[in-house]
């Protein structure tokens, strides 16, 4: 974990939802792996009371989606203005790399009412290792434009509409059966409830949901991001408390104790 300065070198609008920022970062942050993220503060730092802008107050979690010659590319919502040349404060790396299976052929990425941002860093890595990637977008995630993704990624969209119906996508049973591992992101509104629904769905789609198969990628609001405040503690059925910011972001949904 390091507290560093980074420079926004390039800003690219990708689709109506997101823009990509190319960041020149400290070399420790350029070692980012799928699943890891940065904790960023954009407002300039000041030790004088009244000089720092506390809007927003806490750091933001920024998700890398790729690397370009040691530059980290992060995906941010559109509508916030970033300037090339802008210096930001980036702490990282947060969390553990995703634990992919050794013998991996097919991976399903599922975004449920959330942009798939936190999953996208897996794509270059998986394709590079000749793993087939299917990206499923359900609920409001169907609005996410995917033109910028490599053509090898198969994109399946659910039909937007009422909430109960949005956990449906084309060839649902097939895709669930065929995948060796599934990584899911859900809206920040109630991750626990949404991950529970996803788990229940997969329990109907497959005879058995094995361990090390269905992972939730958790992205709650963080306070410290470094394992100090315990705001992101979750309970696991067998191994007690885990901290999302340290031990996460991905947890096997079968091991979670949702109470």
């Amino acid at each position: 974990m390091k507290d560093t300065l980074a420079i926004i070198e390039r800003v690219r609008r990708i689709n109506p939802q997101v823009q990509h920022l190319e960041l020149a970062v400290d070399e420790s942050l350029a070692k980012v792996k799928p699943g890891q993220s940065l904790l960023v503060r954009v407002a300039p730092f000041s030790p004088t009371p009244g000089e720092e802008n506390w809007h927003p107050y806490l750091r933001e979690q920024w998700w890398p989606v790729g690397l370009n010659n040691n530059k980290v590319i992060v995906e941010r919502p559109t509508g916030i203005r970033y300037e090339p040349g802008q210096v930001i404060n980036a702490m990282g790396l947060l969390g553990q790399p995703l634990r992919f299976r050794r013998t991996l052929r097919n991976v399903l990425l599922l975004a449920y009412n959330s942009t798939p941002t936190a999953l996208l860093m897996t794509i270059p890595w998986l394709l590079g290792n000749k793993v087939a990637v299917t990206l499923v977008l359900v609920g409001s995630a169907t609005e996410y434009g995917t033109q910028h993704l490599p053509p090898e990624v198969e994109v399946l969209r659910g039909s937007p509409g009422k909430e109960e119906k949005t956990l449906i996508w084309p060839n649902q049973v097939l895709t669930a059966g065929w995948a060796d591992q599934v990584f899911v992101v859900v809206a920040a509104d109630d991750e626990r409830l949404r991950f529970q629904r996803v788990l229940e769905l997969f329990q109907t789609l497959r005879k058995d949901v094995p361990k090390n198969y269905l992972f939730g990628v958790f992205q709650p609001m963080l306070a410290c991001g470094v394992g100090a405040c315990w705001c992101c503690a979750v309970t696991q059925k067998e191994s007690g408390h885990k901290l999302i910011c340290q031990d996460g972001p991905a947890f096997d949904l079968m091991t979670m104790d949702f109470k």
Partner: protein
Amino acid sequence: MIDITRPGKNMLSLNSPVMAASGVLGFGDAYRDIINFEVLGALVTNPVTYEPYSPAGGMRVVHLDAGCVVHTGMPNPGLSKVLAKYRDLWTMLPLPVILHLVGTTPEHVRKSASRVEVEDAVNALELGLNDDITPEEAHQLVRAAVERTEKPVMVRLPLQDAYAIADAVVEAGAATLVVAAPPRGTGRDKFSGQLVTGRVYGPLVLPIALRVVERLAQRINIPLIGAGGIHAPQDARDYIEAGAVAVQVDAVTWIHPKMLEIIARDLSGLVVTREVGALPDEWYPGIGETTSKMKREGPPPE
């Protein structure tokens, strides 16, 4: 050296008047590669209970305008496991360790204090009190701790009830008052639409807590530690000027870990106030006497 507890056996003196509040640095393992712990006065651990507690359900962190509400419950593996896991680390740390013990029940506090009494890695206890606690309950919890350990028992007062319970806590034998725990509040989480109750952090906590410290410093004769809303060195100095001997820094550490270190380095300087009738440019920090002493020995200023 700064004496942060009332005189007596096992009195605690620190190299620096600056520490992080309970809940901010974890158990001493987080932030070690970012913050130089040597410049801090002490490590105050995350809250510990005698028995294990699970995390709270629902939204934990709610962003507000220039602040946040944090609702964690009191997740911790219980005193025994905490000691087993962190004892060695604490022994190695270059600073005293103050264990924050949540004041659950007198019985649990008694057991915890007995346990800590024989624990060399722990230099003092800081007892956390529930909001809306009565003076009688507070007295009972503090007694429960004081009777079982000769280590200093510092007590962190809830902001809302600080005036009401301070005397009872001092009378029960508290070595230090920490004023105060973050106020409790309710904020609307914009993602879930729900109202979430928890602790409130942000710069606007400073004026509210600072005034409580100012006023308690007039009437309490044991050391006070100021806490709440410190985001910059001058904020910490304000608590010293108001009569605190030391400060606890909270949420700014999450945002700018280095700020904790900056504040700790800064506070070795003196703090003075303008004299009555002097113009500001006839006065500047770093010259003259600190006012905390003047204040506490002179008559109340208003």
